């Protein structure tokens, strides 16, 4: 088996003839913490869905832990960008989180007590355990995203794929969630789409800039440490100008980047 969590070779994808991603080749090592960045409509969500096998590439091939995604039994913790699902549907927070262990139900297709305990623990990690009986439609946007993160965590996944998981979460909440991801990253690969550059620079090991094509950057440990310290020191407000100045200095640009 190869040592890569995700491998894309010459992957192209289009919706109804509109090419969204063209000839992408990239590798994500096991244990990596990869941030996917880029403009709206650049193809970030599409790329993530290709990696999970929700979408099939038009050309090229995708490997997840060395096998075709969708039929390799790898457990994926997916946090979708909040648009797709049916918010009016009557379902409690607890039942949403339990969806993360659907594949572990007993022979009557029911959840055992152990699975319910797991779901409660996952809710505790995102500080949502007090609302477990609430209807999902009665939560705020940020609370709902926390619940979706708990759902992704509770299945003990091999890889976490999060599509803008902190888009409507307040600063200290973002900080906490990225710290949680960093902790989880010791045991699993983490891929996260984010527009929040300060979080990306403070926590991710690599960043993939996606806009039809993909350009990979490495974020070195020193940069991460410094940015994280600055983030903490600025009490939740990292000055934009300062940030871009630092970033210009500190991103280590690789081959592809220089040619782009």
């Amino acid at each position: 088996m190869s040592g890569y969590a995700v491998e894309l070779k010459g992957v192209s994808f289009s919706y109804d003839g509109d090419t969204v991603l063209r000839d992408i080749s990239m590798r994500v090592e096991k244990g990596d913490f990869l941030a996917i960045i880029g403009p709206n409509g650049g193809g970030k969500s599409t790329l993530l869905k290709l990696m999970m096998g929700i979408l099939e590439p038009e050309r090229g091939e995708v490997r997840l832990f060395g096998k075709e995604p969708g039929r390799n039994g790898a457990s994926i913790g997916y946090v979708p960008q909040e648009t797709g699902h049916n918010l009016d549907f009557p379902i409690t927070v607890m039942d949403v989180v339990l969806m993360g262990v659907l594949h572990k139900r007993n022979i009557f297709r029911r959840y055992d007590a152990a699975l319910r305990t797991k779901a409660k623990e996952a809710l505790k990690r995102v500080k949502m355990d007090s609302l477990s009986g609430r209807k999902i439609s009665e939560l705020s946007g940020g609370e709902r995203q926390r619940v979706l993160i708990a759902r992704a965590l509770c299945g003990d996944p091999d890889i976490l794929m999060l599509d803008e998981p902190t888009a409507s979460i307040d600063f200290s909440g973002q900080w906490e969630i990225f710290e949680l991801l960093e902790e989880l990253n010791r045991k699993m690969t983490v891929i996260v789409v984010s527009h929040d550059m300060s979080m990306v620079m403070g926590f991710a090991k690599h960043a993939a800039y996606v806009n039809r094509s993909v350009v990979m950057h490495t974020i070195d440990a020193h940069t991460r440490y410094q940015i994280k310290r600055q983030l903490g020191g600025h009490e939740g407000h990292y000055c934009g100008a300062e940030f871009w100045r630092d970033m210009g200095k500190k991103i280590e640009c690789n081959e592809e980047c220089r040619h782009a």
Partner: protein
Amino acid sequence: MLEALEMPFFLHALTAGVLIAAAIGLIGPLTMANRMTFMSGGIAHATYGGVGAAIFFGFSVLAGAAAAAIVAAAIISFIAYRYAHRADTAIGIVWAVGMAAGVIFSDLAPGYNVDLMSFLFGSILAVNVTDLWIMAAFDLIALAVVWFYYYDFTALSFDPVFAKLQGVKTQFLHFLLLGLVAMTVVLSMRLVGLIMVIALLTMPSFSSERFANSLGRMMLLSIALSIIYIITGLFLAYMYDLSSGASVIIVAAFGTIALLLIESMKIKGFSR
């Protein structure tokens, strides 16, 4: 009004009403949550093709309707998966072609002694004891299927992409659900009619969604509302000699609007 209860045919209609309400209350919430209302309409209208064929060739109307409904469900389920972006067009075609076939078969049928209108709009005279047993058996099957796949259906309804990622057989469940819709349509046909049944699948679900916090409770509420609407509608149909389907639908519409008003007043009351 109470003398109606001494008429055997009316007792049959009432019993059928309760049995149908159970199926409609179980299946309706799932069709609404999975945005299958238009698909259900397509199945219901295509079923008329089976009714016409049965009358023309002289076999059991129930069998003809069931065969047509299941075929329509299979076609629609297939199209909805393979050609998602053109599904509504294709469903519209199944809808109209099925209906047209039914009309032509019945035009060509020798003699004209069957009351075809009753298949479209329902009749309180049409239910016999055999129908009741078939309905009861189907209720049990539907209950068993919904119980067994309860969390799969919940996941499918809330977030189908995630459900599929978790190994839920979403395409199979989609077809299974449309198959249940098909059978519900066929069994409701005599009492409420093919054209009215779609509205009865949606209205109780629409109200109960707001008051329930789980799929199971939404189903229980929908069953209760369906029973109230159908029984009230049947009494009105008896008293004023109306098409039963139409009177059930009008009662349901009043009930749905009343519940909506109650709910909006409740929200205002809280915010004050």
